């Protein structure tokens, strides 16, 4: 049993140790933002004025939309939610199959939620928020907190497709394909954050055609990843790839994953699903590019 003073000293020491881990250089004054980045408390009068202005804008927008709708509605004009998915854009990584209800893709936040649920990023529901208002048919949604991540989306008609997702604790190099049977991607999991993950390559239909698992080193030390069981020989058409005996490889460099889509498939995207230590998870996805 420690005394009260010992206890307080231990707290002081812990705080001092922790504080000492942050030793930032003092940025030049010119690097400071002109305006504070945090939301500031507006004077009450300004809040009322802003609210009134917003109401006027919303009312005006509704009136304009209603007028345009009445004037322009033809027999082929769709006004409700899309009932079928349009063709995914070339840079889409999800959804690639049409098994996702279009209504769940009707907005960027809704689509990001559906994507995170499909990727089993948990625990659900994952908190999500738009980082900025959608612009030119593109939007970015942030999810989770630590480590969390972002989902980039692109709108086609009234459906939002995911074009990439990222997490600050996962580094994914561009996925390159030198030929249809080989996809190469570098993965780096920040140590001490992740329990492990699965790297998959999906084809044009969103089907997983090959995967490898990645785990951080048991020590949780330096930035090392261990690649387990890469498949070496592609399977015949309609058959799963033939896997070599388990292999392990470790490196202080980003782990290079070699993925082998079977013949007859087209690698479309690489998806990295990771499980965080202590629960939660994250997902990173990049389209596959020809080398």
């Amino acid at each position, binding site marked *: *049993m*420690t005394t*009260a003073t010992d*206890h*307080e000293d*231990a*707290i*002081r*020491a*812990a*705080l*001092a*140790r*922790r*504080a*000492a*881990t*942050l*030793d*930032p250089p*003092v*940025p*030049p*004054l*010119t690097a*400071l*933002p*002109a*305006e*504070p*980045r*945090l*939301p500031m408390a507006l004077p009450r009068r300004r809040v009322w004025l802003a609210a009134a202005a917003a109401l006027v804008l919303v009312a005006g927008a509704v009136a304009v939309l209603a007028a345009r709708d009445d004037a322009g509605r033809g027999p082929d004009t769709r006004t409700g939610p899309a009932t079928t998915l349009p063709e995914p854009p070339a840079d889409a990584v999800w959804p690639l199959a049409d098994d996702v209800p279009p209504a769940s893709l009707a907005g960027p936040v809704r689509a990001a939620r559906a994507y995170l649920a499909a990727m089993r990023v948990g*625990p659900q529901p*994952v*908190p999500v928020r738009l980082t900025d208002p959608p612009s030119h048919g593109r939007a970015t949604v942030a999810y*989770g*907190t*630590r*480590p*969390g991540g972002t989902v980039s989306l692109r709108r086609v008609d009234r459906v939002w497709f995911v074009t990439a997702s990222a997490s600050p*604790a996962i580094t994914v190099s561009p996925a390159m394909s030198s030929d249809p049977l080989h996809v190469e991607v570098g993965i780096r999991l*920040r*140590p*001490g*954050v*992740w329990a492990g993950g699965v790297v998959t390559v999906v084809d044009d239909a969103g089907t997983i055609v090959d995967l490898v698992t990645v785990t951080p080193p048991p020590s*949780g*030390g330096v930035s090392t990843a261990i690649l387990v069981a890469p498949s070496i020989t592609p399977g015949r058409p309609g058959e799963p790839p033939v896997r070599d005996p388990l292999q392990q490889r470790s490196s202080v460099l980003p782990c290079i994953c070699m993925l082998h889509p079977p013949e007859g498939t087209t690698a479309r995207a690489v998806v990295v699903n990771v499980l*965080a*230590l*202590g*629960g*939660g998870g994250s997902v990173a996805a990049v389209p596959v590019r020809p080398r």
Partner: protein
Amino acid sequence: MATAPPSDPPSAPAWDDALVALYREQYVPLARLAFLLTDDAGRAEEVVQDAFVRAQRAWAGVREPLPYLRAAVVNGCRSLDRRDRVARAHPPAPPDPATQEPDEMWDAIARLPERQRAVVVLRYWADLPHAEIAALLGCPAATVRTALHRALARLREEIEP
């Protein structure tokens, strides 16, 4: 009186010499204070930079610069915390990669509720008296004493179960 430091471009707003000196002297300590309150180095630095920008704008009316800056930092961190509270309630925070070695006491401090953590940091790291902590947090000194008492009890429970 108000002059821009030599490194500033001509169009930059003027920074008072005293504030510039305070900036150079207090940036790191305040960043560390924010870091202990948020556990996020990037956000901690943002909060401190914003605090100095606000101080510059309000400089004419600032009588006690350091307490002003400290209050701006604490309030900035608490604003962040309020915004993140719901999200933070979901996934348990994974270990910070910056800390490779576990620190049981720090981990316990980081798990304290916002107000208790702030009181502990301001009392045992910033060495502020109860009255000043109360002024910073906008609550009575008795509330600070209660929060500190509960925080100490909770930390003791966690460290010596």
